[in-house]
């Protein structure tokens, strides 16, 4: 894999993440004055959840709007986290992506009995993502990676 491909993949993934998460709030800020028609412009991820503290950047509309009016309000934390993991898996080299996704699925399935452990594992995968991406690409770029033919 050439360095150019590496950079292109990183940029493509960043654009993909931006497109998904930076879906700005379409609600007009409720105020009387010149700012009446302004949009609050918060990313959807910020305004989507009812449990999110109000002080952390919800527009006035989203503070009071019923849940069904909030962006992606039909999605719970599970699909959102799963979707995030799926999106960020595109940052990994193609050979490694399948292995990593299978490992995530396997670990989450094994820990399904305990929600706390499951959350810890999800957090672990997300926090360790920079190290995983870096290691995977270094292994590929340095040419030390053997093809993982054992994966089915």
């Amino acid at each position, binding site marked *: 894999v050439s360095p150019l491909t590496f950079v292109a993949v990183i940029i493509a993934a960043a654009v993909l993440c931006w497109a998904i998460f930076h879906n700005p709030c379409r609600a007009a800020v409720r105020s009387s004055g010149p700012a009446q028609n302004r949009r609050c412009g918060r990313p959807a991820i910020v305004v989507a959840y009812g449990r999110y503290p109000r002080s952390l950047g919800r527009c006035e509309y989203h503070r009071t709007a019923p849940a069904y009016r909030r962006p992606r309000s039909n999605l719970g934390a599970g699909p959102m986290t799963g979707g995030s993991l799926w999106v960020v898996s595109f940052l990994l080299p193609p050979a490694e992506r399948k292995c*990593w996704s299978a*490992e995530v699925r396997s670990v989450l*399935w094994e820990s399904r009995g305990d929600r706390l452990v499951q959350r810890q594992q999800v957090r*672990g*995968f997300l*926090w360790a993502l920079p190290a*995983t991406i870096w290691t995977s690409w270094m292994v590929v770029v340095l040419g030390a990676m053997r093809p993982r033919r054992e994966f089915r």
Partner: protein
Amino acid sequence: MTLPTQAVLQALLEHYGEELYGFELSKASGLAAGTIYPILQRLTVAGWVSARWEDPEPTRVAGRPPRRYYRLTVEGRARAVHALAARSTSRSATTGLLNRRPGVEGGLA
């Protein structure tokens, strides 16, 4: 060698000869599976650890995703023992240095 790497090697040494899958290894080492994944990746590339995917047929019957099994190789075991011993020696030397009191012979005056 980082502390998580040491914890992973320790867990693999304790279960030498057995195959451990990601979640088991996570429990044995006390680290999240996401943390140990890049470590195992590096150890696999270095030849310290061998990894294989489980046969898909039993998993299909059991209705669960396939597991990836990791095992310490013979070479990996020798190197891990050596590396952990070296780390332990250097750690005890550092601890000894820190525990020295001023005024005591050999200590910082």
